[in-house]
């Protein structure tokens, strides 16, 4: 069995804090993986038009590259990449007609029929590594930290590629528990963050951010845990704009699940790139003595 890691564009620039912390955790947990050398943008958003096969070419080409590298599983860290790759894989596996059209068009590549398994790091942790092994590797348990698990949309919908129950997911909850943290349940755990609406209707996206973050805060969360760079953009990076607009809104530390994992595993703080998070995130971890030193 060989595991290919598909990085995704954002993780190489704006979301280094998602990637570097995850790769350090891979190593700490003994995950053998190979970062893909040749890959292109997956397209980020899965096209829903029925006859829009050209937008399947990008994710399928990535899957072909992983197959060429001799892998049988592709793991992603970004929820959007996961969704796009998993759905394209599903299409190549189950829709014979479209598969033939795409393979015919991509005649410079070997044929592909959905042979690979596409996973997100979260279900890889659950299914391939196991919570027991994660628990055993924890050096700094997140005791007493109240964490709101924010799933967003693309890990849970549609059901064909959902890594957990779309209505009542528990995967991030189990993850937080394995690290010794406390779960803060809140109604907006799988509400969309506003996604790309932030481009066309930024005010509407701010409103959703406000609803999600206020709900987490009202339920007593110390921080919001997420998996997706676009969610982080809407809930983390745009939080100052949200605080300015909504009177009484509270600052909410936001961090990637992989950063939390790296902290709990006692990995060097540099791997977390906290400089890309809100200051309140660093302050929170420092106040809980979870950072061995202050990040530069």
């Amino acid at each position: 069995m060989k595991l290919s890691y598909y990085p995704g564009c954002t993780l190489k620039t704006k979301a280094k804090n998602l990637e570097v912390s995850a790769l350090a955790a891979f190593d700490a947990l003994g995950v053998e993986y190979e970062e893909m050398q040749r890959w292109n943008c997956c397209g980020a958003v899965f096209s829903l038009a029925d006859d829009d096969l050209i937008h399947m070419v990008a994710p399928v080409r990535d899957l072909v590259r992983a197959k060429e590298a001799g892998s049988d599983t592709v793991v992603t860290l970004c929820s959007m990449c996961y969704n796009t790759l998993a759905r394209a894989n599903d299409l190549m596996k189950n829709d014979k007609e479209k598969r033939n059209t795409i393979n015919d068009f991509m005649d410079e590549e070997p044929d592909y029929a959905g042979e690979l398994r596409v996973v997100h790091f979260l279900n890889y942790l659950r299914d391939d590594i196991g919570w027991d092994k994660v628990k055993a590797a924890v050096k700094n348990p997140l005791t007493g930290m109240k964490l709101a698990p924010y799933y967003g949309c693309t890990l849970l919908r549609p059901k064909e590629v959902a890594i957990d129950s779309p209505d009542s997911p528990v995967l991030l909850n189990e993850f937080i528990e394995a690290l010794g943290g406390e779960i803060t349940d809140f109604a907006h755990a799988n509400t969309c963050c506003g996604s790309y609406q932030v481009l066309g209707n930024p005010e509407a996206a701010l409103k959703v951010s406000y609803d999600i973050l206020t709900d987490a805060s009202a339920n007593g969360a110390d921080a919001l845990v997420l998996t997706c760079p676009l969610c982080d953009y809407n809930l983390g990076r745009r939080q100052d704009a949200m605080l300015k607009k909504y009177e009484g809104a509270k600052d909410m530390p936001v961090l990637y699940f992989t950063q939390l994992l790296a902290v709990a595993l006692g990995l060097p703080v540099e791997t977390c790139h906290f400089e890309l998070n809100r200051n309140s995130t660093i302050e929170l971890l420092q106040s809980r003595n979870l950072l061995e030193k202050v990040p530069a």
Partner: protein
Amino acid sequence: MKTEEVTAEVAAKLIPIYIMGKKYDVPESLTIMKAMEYAGYKYIRGCGCRGGVCGACATVYRKPGDYKIYTGLACQTVVEPEMYLTQLPFYPANRAVYDFAELEGKPEDVFELYPELFRCVACNACTKVCPMDVEVLDYISALKRGDIKAAAEISFDCIQCGLCASRCFAEMPQYHIGQLARRLNGAYLTPRAEHLKTMVANIEAERFKEGLDSLKAMDTDTLKETYQDREMEPATAGEDWAPKDNTYL
């Protein structure tokens, strides 16, 4: 004794090719460029170095019974029987206008100058059409994720012929974007040659003035003699070789 005169005629076999749809019989061993000249075409544009590096003579062709598009440089590609060809000496592609000194070598430099980068759907038509076998899609993909260095390295063999732009589904000018990546990489991302500063400082401090003045003052014969008697590093010299006279080292 009477000798008989024998004339041996060596003639290349002629094969049919179609230049812009018109049939010509040309010697089978010629390059496309030579064959076009043989057929009577005179190059004013679409021909530069004739050595496979200038990118002026990009040519598109097809073969009978084959749906594929083939490409090559006319000066490097040998004719094939029944090929249909046309040269594309130029393909319109907009090059962004920028003040290089104001750029910083950041991914955003590229994104702002060429936002059409994000129209790429990874169809790979650019790579398939490249006569230099550059992995065009790979460097465009590298740029989308902000990896200017990788884009500069992957696009290194580009000769700016423009065929990628002619086939692009997203209407991108790939070759201009690749050139920007190589410029940014060279100017902002590649480490400076620190020893050059020392050398320039030495020159400015007139470290070599005496030597140059003495050469300038020599008469021609002495100059020739000095040149011929100069000490040269032997071809088999090891790493530790040093000249006997190290005045200027």
